[in-house]
């Protein structure tokens, strides 16, 4: 598979860098000070391809913190806080859209 660093980024709006944490696979996002956080509103939001590329390089360089970093779209709320930009990312952030069998709600 092509490395994310070799792919030409198309950025048409606000984006973040997201990945899965190495130890437990949890969804994490890359911050402006190059940390990984589970809180989406702490993620660094960029809006240009060069800025996204630079952030992605830094994220991928941290091979122990997280795995499979990529650029994901976000939408900005009224206070400028990012929310997931598509269904896939909404599910990653919020979890499955169905009740888990161990916690049935049907």
């Amino acid at each position, binding site marked *: 598979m092509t490395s994310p660093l070799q792919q030409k980024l198309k950025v048409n709006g606000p984006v973040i860098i997201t990945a899965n944490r190495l130890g437990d*696979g949890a969804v994490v996002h890359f911050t402006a000070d190059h940390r990984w956080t589970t809180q989406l509103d702490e993620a660094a939001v960029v809006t240009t391809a060069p800025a996204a590329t630079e952030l992605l390089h830094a994220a991928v360089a941290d091979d122990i913190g997280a795995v*499979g970093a990529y650029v994901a779209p976000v939408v900005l709320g009224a206070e400028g806080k990012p929310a997931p930009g598509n269904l896939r990312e909404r599910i990653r952030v919020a979890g*499955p859209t169905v009740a888990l069998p*161990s916690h049935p709600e049907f």
Partner: protein
Amino acid sequence: MYHYDDFDRTLVAERVDEFRDQVARRLSGELSEDEFKPLRLMNGVYLQLHAYMLRIAIPYGTLSSAQLRMLGHVGRRYDRNYGHFTTRQNIQFNWIKLQDLPDAMADLAKVEMHGMQTSGNCVRNITTDQWAGVAADEIEDPRIWAEILRQHSTMHPEFSFLPRKFKIAITASTHDRAAVKVHDIGLRLHRNGAGEVGFEVLVGGGLGRTPYIGKSIKPFLHKRDLLSYIEAILRVYNQFGRRDNIYKARIKILVHELGAEAFAKEVEAEWQLIKDGALALDPAVIADVAARFSYPDYEQLEDSPATLTSALASDPQFKIWFGNAVSNHKVPGYAIVTLSLKPTGGPPGDATAEQMDAIADLADKYSFGEIRVGHEQNLVFPHVPQRDLPALWKAIDAIGVATPNLGTVSDIIACPGLDYCSLANARSIPVAEEITRRFRDHNLARDLGRLHINISGCINACGHHHVGHIGLLGVEKNDQEYYQVSIGGRADEHAELGTLLGPAVPYAEAVDVVEDLVAAYLELRARPDEIFLDTVKRVGVEPFKERVYATR
């Protein structure tokens, strides 16, 4: 049940130790992700949307009660208290942590389980009929051959880096419950004109992006030649299969591009070089493997005992369940019982840790401690005395696995879809759950007759949508979920690919379309016992297409 020998136990134990070391080196940074990924995949460890996923092999779908109890333990201790049975007789845990995986694997090894051959470009878990060894229409137990192939293919150095994954299925019955025609290699045990039992070999079947029905390249293969012939197929594939394009790497593409006849000639030429060598199966070896399968010490019982006939006469609900979930056993006085993992409003194929524990206990009590997993994502008790059926029914009803919907519209095969899977484009589970809610009247559902719905969340087709009587394929358009609808597919001995009806429909309409198709079928069927599939065959897809798209 098959019983491991010391070699098997040592191999699995060593694999746990290796993986523990690999995980430690990954967590410390000594191994990069690029180095580690192929190692974890060789142990069935994927990284999905929310977490790591562990896929555990259940060879030929046979589980002991101790193994099922251990799966419940793994779900409870290392995951979120449930597991998902897949269309390839495996089980997946969706929330497991990398740091916990070595301990989980060590626990699994205690009951002879592991994740080998559940991922990567190797020969995957070899599947068969979930009724193997007990089916009334079976020639012989196909699991012996599955086990011989498992032993041969496990960590086989020549076949650990194939162009792509490789799936083998075996059936020994007239009615194919193992979907052998949609596997890379399908093996059908049958009797030739001389009365000998051997294999018909089909090759190049598969679903996914480019679906094909397997082609028969060897009408009759003697048992002694099984390993050498399979090895010849794999060698031809290894040599000529495409490695430059992942979408064209499966053997089905090679068979299609070469043509089945030319492919068979290549195999034949390779086979002639090796057929009389070390791979020729010695009857003693076959006997040794067969001897490691234990069978219940059946009692001499009569069919239709008084406890059964009395319950059938007095309890209509029991009678409904019996008609739906109980099948003929080859031993008089016994029955095969299927447990539905398709509750109304629930995800197909999931079982909680508590259910696994309870099912294991009931297997000990009523099925000689044995459970089977079918590719339809249900479980089976293969050896139930008929006299115990009323008591068993009450017990499984109490834990939610006696829904009398097997083979009906709500017995849906579905992949995890976008709720879990990093490859998916659309969700499968909520669509399946809504279908089961719409058809929650099981009397109506049974009146509809046999109707298989298959749902896949992406073109990889883990939900086998191409071979559903109704197939739904989730696609993504402009960040919205849509579903392509096909009808007329089937995965049995008359396997066919479904026909695409027309443009994909949005998520909100997918279940309405299923209802429309069912309504059209009810109007079109020639008689109450003409099943959906036969109506499609008789009238074609056009009347269904008109019904679906008339108002869309």
